[in-house]
């Protein structure tokens, strides 16, 4: 018996802000434990939340890119439970009135495209980070109060591949819009996957399992694949499926039971009285929209349709936002889109990988690259010289391409008179080859060209020289 897999995903995503959601203390991933903490983060008596405007703007941007309906009356609730990572004893979140509802993103599965609904985007605050040891636990309050959005999908994913694609697409979008670092390995994007099985054609959902805190896209895929097998086995053997919370163990590649979900936890939600309902000005909504650059899917379309790149090349560039930013910048100086892409994907990436450099730190500036490519196409420099110039740029930390060409005397000779001088000299000294050509041996041209290159120290424009040589040979 085959089952239909039903998957929904909850994502917690840390927003890129300087300070915390409700306090002025700094947000910093790498800082020493418990250094970015004040009395508000510690939930000390009498302290009050102050809303971080930047976090609201970031949440608005997320709502825009996910096509959400935006509730411009900002309201918050308290979610109450006792746990050492929650200093106030409640988390400020949006239970009753999420900032965003009813959105979607599109995933491209190559064979087909699919819309995945996003039911809610809510603004909330992160908890402290607990590190458990055998007989004690350490608390780092730095993370406590970090601005978060929770992104809750609908249950429309039907395979591990779709789930992985959904998370990856969404992650890239968040990075593009500069909403979040969205680094799963650092925990700035965390995924909880809900998965259940049901017979094909069944309307009713099966009993679901929640897999907590998956830390990479490939683990999402593996965990779901494992869960499908595990749940199928239970159903097929007529055992009782329990609603469970599980975690994924990377070593055994299995999901492991954390706790049974006996009834729903009562979080005693109630409205947050210290943040009176606040109207988000239309201006703020509009301005946050203006901050959003082209999304990956739109950029891909632009590359393929407007720049005429092939899908493979276009995807390589789009998947790395820094690379895409560099490419876009270069293309703003020159419309040799394909040639710039070719150079970046071959020469550029090879150099970056070999030297383990991020493209943001590459010495060669996009405008210099655009200029180099242009000079090459116009025949001012040869492809061989292109490589030499790139090396010189790196060696001399100099982006002035024109001065490099001048200094190293690399300008190609492109005036007819000068080239004709070289041609005539070579023809005079290689009568046999001239004869061969006239007798129908085309290969003789190669020899003659080689000689011209030699005496001109490779500086003549090869294309033009070729044309002129043929013309001269045919004259006599």
């Amino acid at each position: 018996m085959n089952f239909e897999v039903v998957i929904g995903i909850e994502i917690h995503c840390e927003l890129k802000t300087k300070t915390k959601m409700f306090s002025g203390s700094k947000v910093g991933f790498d800082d020493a434990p418990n250094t970015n903490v004040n009395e508000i983060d510690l939930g000390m008596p009498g302290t009050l939340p102050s809303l971080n405007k930047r976090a609201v703007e970031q949440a608005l941007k997320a709502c825009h890119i996910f096509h959400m309906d935006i509730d411009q009356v900002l309201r918050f609730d308290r979610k109450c439970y006792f746990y050492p990572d929650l200093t106030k004893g409640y988390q400020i979140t949006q239970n009753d009135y999420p900032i965003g509802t009813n959105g979607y993103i599109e995933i491209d599965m190559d064979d087909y495209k699919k819309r995945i609904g996003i039911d809610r985007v809510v603004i909330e605050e992160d908890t402290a980070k607990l590190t458990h040891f055998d007989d004690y636990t350490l608390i780092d309050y730095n993370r406590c109060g970090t601005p978060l959005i929770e992104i809750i999908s609908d249950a429309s994913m039907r395979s591990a591949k779709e789930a992985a694609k959904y998370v990856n697409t969404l992650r890239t979008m968040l990075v593009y819009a500069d909403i979040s670092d969205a680094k799963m390995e650092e925990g700035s994007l965390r995924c909880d996957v809900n998965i259940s099985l049901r017979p094909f054609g069944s309307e009713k959902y099966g009993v679901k399992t929640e897999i907590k805190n998956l830390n990479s896209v490939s683990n999402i895929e593996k965990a779901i694949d494992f869960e499908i097998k595990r749940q199928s086995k239970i159903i097929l053997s007529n055992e009782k499926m329990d609603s469970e919370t599980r975690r994924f163990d990377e070593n055994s590649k299995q999901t492991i039971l954390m706790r049974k979900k006996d009834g729903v936890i009562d979080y005693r939600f109630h409205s947050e009285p210290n943040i009176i309902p606040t109207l988000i000005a239309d201006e703020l909504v509009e301005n946050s929209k203006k901050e959003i650059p082209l999304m990956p899917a739109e950029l891909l379309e632009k590359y393929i349709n407007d720049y005429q790149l092939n899908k493979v090349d276009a995807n390589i560039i789009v998947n790395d936002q820094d690379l895409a930013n560099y490419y876009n910048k270069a293309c703003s100086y020159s419309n040799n889109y394909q040639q710039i892409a070719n150079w970046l994907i071959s020469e550029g990436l090879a150099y970056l990988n070999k030297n383990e450099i991020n493209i943001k730190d590459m010495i060669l500036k996009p405008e210099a690259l655009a200029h180099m490519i242009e000079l090459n196409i116009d025949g001012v420099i040869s492809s061989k010289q292109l490589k030499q110039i790139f090396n010189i740029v790196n060696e001399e930390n100099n982006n002035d391409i024109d001065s490099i060409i001048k200094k190293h005397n690399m300008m190609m000779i492109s005036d007819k008179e000068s080239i004709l001088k070289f041609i005539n000299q070579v023809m005079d000294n290689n009568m046999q080859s001239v004869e061969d050509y006239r007798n129908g041996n085309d290969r003789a041209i190669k020899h003659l060209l080689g000689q011209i290159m030699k005496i001109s120290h490779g500086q003549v424009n090869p294309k033009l020289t070729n044309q002129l040589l043929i013309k001269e040979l045919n004259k006599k």
Partner: protein
Amino acid sequence: MHKKTILELREDLLNNKISVEQLAIECQNDLKQLNDKLNAINNYCDFQALEVNDSLLSGIPYVMKDLVATKDYLTTSSSMMLNDFVPQYNGTIYNNLSNENAIMIAKSNLDEYGMGGTNLNSIHGMSCNPYDTNKGTGGSSGGSAAVVAAGCVPFALGTDTGDSVRKPAAYCGIYGYKPSWTVNSRYGVYPYGSSLDQPGVFARCVDDIAIVMEALNGPDPLDMSSLVHEKEYFYKNLKANDKPLKIGYIKELIDSFDNEIVLNQFEELKEFLSSLGHNIIELHMSKDLLRCGRGVYHVIANSEATSNLANLTGIDFGLQILDKDVKQSIIASRNKGLSKYTKARLLIGALSLKEANKENYFEKGKKIRTLIINNFDKLFNEVDILIAPCANSRAVDYKNNEVIPMSDDANIIAENHLSLTNLIGACGITIPTHMVDGYPYAMSFMAKPYHDQFLLNFAKEFENNLLENNYKNIISFYNKYAEEVK
């Protein structure tokens, strides 16, 4: 003893009759001497003798309710849980007074976390009424009321969630002021019911209330709710009202009182106000709705309290009792750290928010609150000020377990109506008016939200007229204090 008003003390300071240091030391000594009887002070504060400058409050000593965070000073809330807690941050209202060079000399006893109307909910026991130390001050800001009523300081700060400033003021024969919600910043004030809490002032005259309120109020970036309006200059703009006003009373509320003494006092009040040229108007409100007030107050305040006090786990501050695991340690710490009475209130809150009850309690409570707000909006369309007696009885003799018999309505409505002011976010002042058998009685005056200046101007008119002449049994309590603490 320096039983003087702020302005009188300022005269003395400016004329070098006394130095700032001397004044503060003498006031502190008065407190120490009386505290055996009053039990009003939790901690005395080391102070710096700040200089006298242009500010009317410079060099003036005062007492702070031990519920407002003060950096480097114990802020215990009269609770076992925080008995050793020294905040590393200041309440904004404390900062505001410090900026005026006012001098905090002690922190006062209270019902822990402001939960109570008796001051019995304190690890130190109740603070005592200077007019009769067998009797209570009422609560929760009992200690602050007692020290002002005993004449130790010209003013003290309290907080008012239901009636926690106004009722102790009434029982102790002094003025008690509760501003409209959000007028004073709540940052650093330990919360009880956040949507109701508001810091207020005890003093012995209207000028002093206005001077202190002028210093306290203003938008505070640390309290978002306070950002909705601008700073007000209550003393600078204080001007006794000279226009005839429409003054209303809710008949169903007055009918719920059953104490003849109080009802007669109220009749006198109406006559007196009428004699000043004001128009007294009878208003109506459903008795059922009035009766709901107490329940709605408890559901909302205690629901908010369950989360407000959920930080008290002993993990990162406060009393920590270790048990076999974290969860048990939290339970043990809270069990020992919080009083039985506080736990009972938290239980009411938790039950009101429980998924199965929420619709019927918390959500319904909020709906009835809206209904109450709408009803008062209508009343305030007809009148400028609402009046009523503060309470059905005088201060209670807790030491002899006195129980004052009264009707259900008196118990439910008359004894609790001051909390309606908090439910609608309005401002209220209680002014003592009568003295019967040596005990003070007081009247409540209420104006609509953010009409604080208007209410103070009215109070000034009221006070001025009584300074000239008593009206029947209504007497002036201007700078009146308990001359002998028995």
